[in-house]
C-alpha cells in the first residue's frame, strides 16, 4: 500500500485524471483507510476553488475604465 507522502505527491495528477488505472486504484485504496488523507484531498480541492472564486472577481472600477478609454482615444489621435 502507498503511504501518505506518495498519496499527496500524486494528488495533482489524480485530480487532473492523469494517473494510470493501477496507480488510481492504489491511491483510492489508501483513501479508504486514511481519513487524514481524505481530509487533505477535500481541503486541497476547496482551496483551489475558493481562491479562484475570490481572485476572479476583480472588476475594473468605472472611473478607471473611463480614464483608460480617454487615454487610448487621445493616443490614437496623436498617431
Amino acid at each position: 500500500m502507498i503511504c501518505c507522502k506518495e498519496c499527496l505527491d500524486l494528488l495533482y495528477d489524480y485530480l487532473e485524471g492523469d494517473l494510470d488505472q493501477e496507480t488510481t486504484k492504489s491511491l483510492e485504496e489508501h483513501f479508504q483507510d486514511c481519513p487524514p488523507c481524505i481530509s487533505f484531498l477535500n481541503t486541497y480541492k476547496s482551496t483551489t476553488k475558493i481562491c479562484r472564486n475570490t481572485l476572479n472577481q476583480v472588476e475594473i472600477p468605472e472611473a478607471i475604465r473611463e480614464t483608460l478609454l480617454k487615454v487610448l482615444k487621445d493616443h490614437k489621435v496623436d498617431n
Partner: protein
Amino acid sequence: MSFSQPKKDKEIEESLVREFQGGNLKAYDKIAEIYQKKIYGLSFNLTRNQMDAQDVTQEVLLTLFRKIKMFQGKSAFSSWVYRITLNTSYMKLRSKKKEPNISIDELMPSFNRAGFQQEKIQDWSENTESLMFNTETRDVINKAVDLLPEKEKVVFLLRDVEGLSTEKTGEILNLTVPAVKSRLHRARLFLRKKLSYYFEEFSSRKAEK
C-alpha cells in the same frame, strides 16, 4: 479544471489582430475591449493596488497599439498579451520595496519516517461555502495568495485563476509542463496550509458555541 479558448473566439481574435495590423483602428478597439478586464485582473492580483493595476493596464494597451507589427503569430496572441502584462507588472513591482517572502518549504506537509502524515488534518471544506461572502474570509484568501513566492504565484494566477491550460501557462512562462505542474502543486499546498489556520479556528469557534 482548465478551459481552453473556444475555437470560434480564437478565429475572431486572429482576424481582429490581422485587421489591426493592416491599419484598422476599430479592430484595435475590439481587442482592447476583449483584453482590458484580463489585463487589469491579472495586474491587480499581482500588485494588489488599483493605481498600479490601472498604470499597468494602460501601458499594456498602449504597447499593444504601438507594437502590434512586432507580433508575428509564433505563439497565440493571448500568450503575447499575458507576457507583456507580466513584464509590465514586474517592472512596476520592482520599483517598490517588498516584504520578503516566507519560505514555502516550511509550509509543505510533513511526514514521519514511514511516510505517514504527522499533523492532524481537519476537514474544513464543508465550512467554506458559508464563509465565501464574508469580507474577512476574502481578506484571508487575498493575503495568503500575496504571500506566495513569485515563481509559484504567477503559475497559480495563470492556471487556477485565469483558467489557462497547463500547456499555455508553460508557453507564456517558458516552462516545461512538469515544471508548471510542480509549481502549481506547491502553490496549492502552501495556500491550503495558510487557509487551514483560518478555517480550523473557525470550526473550533463554531464547536464551542
